[in-house]
């Protein structure tokens, strides 16, 4: 069932999108009609005007769904399921010819040759100016060096002159041009008849159903045409990359410069210079040599020699657009953003579609996570999202019973007897229980990433309430408690909880203990402060009345001050839950191996945007559920609030 839903998510999305579109139009119609009906009864500023209006909520929600679908390419995938595959083939062609384009203005504004010529000439000029101020060289040497720089500069001039171009290079460039034109012609001719996609291509998973986003092998005739063209383009590009402008005028010059640089280096090494001078001389010669080496590669071509290739590439681009045909419209209308790019072995969605997953993909991801069958791809990292498991009772006992209970029990631990065997006494058995070594059966217990997060929050909150409320109440009525504990709490409370995290996690470990302690610190401070505010806000007359009614101090604390502080305490719990939840997720991102925050952190490192969104949604929903629950509890337990 889930498999089927997952495989057909594009079709499901198509239905949903049509429904949303229909709902949007319908709700606008209803809303407008209602607005016209009511326009007469209501005046501006009448609070009743804000009542009802559910149809506008429907408008908002369906519009949001449509916008989400559009920008995530959900609409595109629903109605043009093959388009991405074709765009991927085009991206392959783009990638194949990109090395040629990079050398031409069409790809990077200037010819690569132009950039090389101007940059190296500028650097040589700089060196020449530097030479005048150089003190490490003698006057005669400076003349030699200036001549050397001039000759290196001559290499640029020689390469840039069309007259120097060797016939061999000229032929090679012409060959590239011809091949590109031939490729353009193939594209213009369109897909040859009788072309059918390979079985392998047809067997590929659909767009978006696996981690590889877009099926790579062409499944349409047009796609196959582009795929074939990309293969040919790659060959042409590699041929183009091998072409060098080695002309006879430069060959002699290059040999000459090489010997002159070698001579200079030898002089530098002769040992007649002190350390500093030598370093300066070597540095200067090395700078000249570096530029020379860049130039003797023969990568600078005369601009005129490349003009034909440039035109052929432009023509190929035009042919590409022609061959796209109807795809061009679909791409412009339904694929907002930069489109599809092929990098290495994958075709990936670019722009908003990259970080904004399609609604159906989010649901599919959630279904996969929620599947408790961990062995078969459910859950995350071998752990379900929320499920149950058998928890040994001994683990719980070990958690609550400390080992020292056994240590302080009278008597000694058993020793091994003369025959080497041990007979455990009561003290040993007590230790075994405290350590959780005794099997006491199992109870069913919730488990999973969500439960782990919840568990941490609940335990920390429970501890915070259990310890914080009494302390807060005493601080509200006793000068000693208030003055003694106030500085201690105010010392750590103003620090943002996450600032404590690295320290706490180091001390208590990255498992539950550390996180629970961190959250406990958060909840404790909030509970203390709210209980204290509640306790010190008790009307004096109520306390006096209780005294006159014969209540003892302890009775007043429990029967008067505590219930009086209850509204503040519950508000404190509500705030604690929110803050703990926020802190927990961040703490789980820092360290740990389970929890919702952990899942999101891993999702981030592998750029799994669907998973990121799913965890964001889970956290939002859980936070909302917590808050609604607290609001309900507050309403039920303190109906007198604000009425006393």
């Amino acid at each position: 069932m889930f498999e089927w839903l997952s495989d057909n998510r594009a079709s499901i999305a198509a239905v949903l999108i049509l429904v949303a579109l229909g709902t949007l139009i319908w709700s606008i119609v209803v809303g407008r009609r209602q607005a016209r009906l009511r326009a007469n009864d209501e005046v501006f500023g009448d609070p009743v005007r804000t009542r009802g209006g559910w149809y506008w909520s429907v408008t908002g929600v369906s519009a949001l769904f449509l916008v989400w679908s559009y920008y995530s390419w959900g609409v595109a995938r629903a109605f043009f399921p093959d388009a991405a595959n074709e765009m991927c083939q085009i991206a392959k062609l783009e990638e194949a010819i990109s090395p040629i384009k990079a050398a031409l203005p069409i790809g990077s504004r200037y010819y690569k040759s132009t950039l090389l010529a101007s940059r190296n000439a500028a650097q040589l000029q700089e060196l020449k100016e530097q030479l005048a101020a150089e003190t490490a060289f003698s006057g005669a040497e400076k003349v030699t060096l200036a001549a050397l720089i001039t000759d290196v500069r001559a290499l640029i001039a020689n390469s840039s002159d069309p007259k120097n171009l060797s016939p061999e290079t000229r032929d090679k460039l012409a060959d590239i041009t011809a091949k590109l034109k031939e490729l353009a012609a193939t594209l213009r001719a369109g897909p040859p008849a009788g072309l059918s996609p390979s079985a392998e291509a047809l067997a590929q998973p659909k767009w978006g159903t696996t981690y590889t986003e877009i099926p790579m092998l062409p499944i349409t005739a047009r796609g196959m045409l582009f795929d074939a063209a990309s293969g040919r383009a790659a060959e042409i590009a590699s041929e183009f990359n091998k072409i060098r402008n080695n002309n006879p005028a430069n060959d002699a010059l290059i040999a000459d410069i090489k010997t002159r640089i070698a001579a200079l280096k030898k002089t530098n090494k002769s040992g007649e210079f002190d350390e500093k001078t030598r370093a300066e001389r070597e540095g200067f010669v090395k700078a000249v040599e570096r530029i020379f080496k860049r130039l003797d590669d023969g990568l600078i071509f005369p601009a005129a020699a490349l003009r034909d290739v440039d035109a052929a590439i432009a023509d190929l681009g035009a042919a590409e657009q022609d061959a796209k045909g109807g795809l061009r419209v679909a791409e412009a209308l339904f694929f907002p953003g930069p489109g599809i790019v092929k990098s290495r072995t994958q075709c990936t969605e670019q722009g908003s579609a990259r970080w904004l997953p399609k609604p159906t993909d989010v649901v599919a991801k959630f279904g996969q996570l929620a599947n408790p069958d961990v062995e078969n791809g459910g859950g995350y990292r071998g752990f379900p999202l929320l499920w149950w498991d058998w928890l040994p009772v001994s683990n719980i006992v070990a958690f609550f019973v400390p080992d020292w209970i056994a240590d302080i029990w009278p008597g000694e631990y058993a020793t091994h007897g003369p025959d080497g065997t041990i007979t455990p006494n009561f003290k040993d058995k007590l230790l075994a229980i405290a350590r959780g070594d005794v099997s006491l059966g199992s109870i069913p217990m919730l488990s999973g990433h969500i439960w782990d997060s919840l568990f941490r929050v609940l335990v920390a909150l429970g501890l915070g309430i259990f310890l914080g409320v009494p302390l807060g109440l005493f601080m509200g009525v006793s000068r000693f408690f208030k003055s003694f504990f106030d500085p201690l709490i105010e010392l750590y409370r103003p620090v943002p909880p996450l600032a404590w995290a690295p320290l706490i996690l180091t001390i208590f470990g990255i498992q539950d203990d550390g996180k629970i302690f961190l959250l406990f610190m958060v909840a404790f401070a909030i509970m203390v402060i709210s209980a204290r505010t509640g306790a010190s806000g008790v009307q004096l007359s109520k306390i006096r009345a209780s005294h006159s009614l014969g209540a003892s101090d302890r009775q007043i604390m429990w029967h008067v001050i505590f219930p009086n502080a209850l509204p503040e305490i519950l508000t404190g719990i509500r705030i604690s839950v929110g803050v703990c939840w926020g802190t927990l997720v961040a703490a789980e991102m820092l360290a740990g191996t389970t929890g919702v925050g952990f899942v999101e952190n891993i999702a981030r490192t592998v750029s799994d945007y669907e998973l990121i969104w799913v965890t964001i949604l889970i956290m939002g929903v859980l936070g909302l559920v917590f808050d609604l629950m607290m609001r309900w509890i507050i309403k039920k337990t303190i109906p007198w609030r604000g009425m006393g």
Partner: protein
Amino acid sequence: MADLVCEDLSMTFTNPQTGAVVEALKDINFTLKKGELLSVLGPSGCGKTTLLNVIAGFLKATSGRVTLGGETITAPGVERGMVFQQGALFEWLPVSRNVDFGLRMKGSDPKESAALVEKWLEIVGLQGFGDTPTYQLSGGMQQRVALARCLINDPEVILMDEPLGALDALTREKMQSLVLELWKETGKTIMIITHSVEEALLLGERLFVMAPRPGRVHREYRLPFAERGLEESLREIKHDPYFSEMREEILTMIWDMEEEIMGRV
């Protein structure tokens, strides 16, 4: 003989910031016999509340002492019940739990307590309201609960600090009748502070008019109206010429005091 006796009672407050000293009470001497109904009247700030708080045991007098039945008062106790202006009810408890608060604190038998609560709710006119949350009651009803809560403990003295001050005229009249009724039926010693001259006349077998700076008993009266109020309607008493005469006399007295205060300031 559970008489309430004040002997040379003085109370001074010192403002910790300015060091200014206020003589809230100075040399107060009186004896309140068991079963007497005393009303205390005086301009605002003359030390009425202070006096009541000292008797209740909430404040410790600077000098002098208060005794009840011969025993010196040092702390609050069940034998001196308090009724406050705003009721000071426990709003998280329903009416019956408010009323039996004192019994629960004592650890009384729940069944007996329940019967007592029924009885007292009926006396104060709140039968059937046992389960109502107190915040849903009107001001007058809340004061009835406060009275019942205090009386159920069977105190020897009932101390009331402007108990009817926040009520509307009609409710107030009904509550005044109730106080007289309770006084008659229970025979308790009652000390009631009020800022209404009419109320003081109606609810005082004895009446103290206090004067400020230092707080002292300025005049003392013995009045017949409370006795009469047990039989006659309070409205008729108010039309009595003697009542009007007394009212005018006391009003003038308080006016003069107020003017003196204003002049001094």
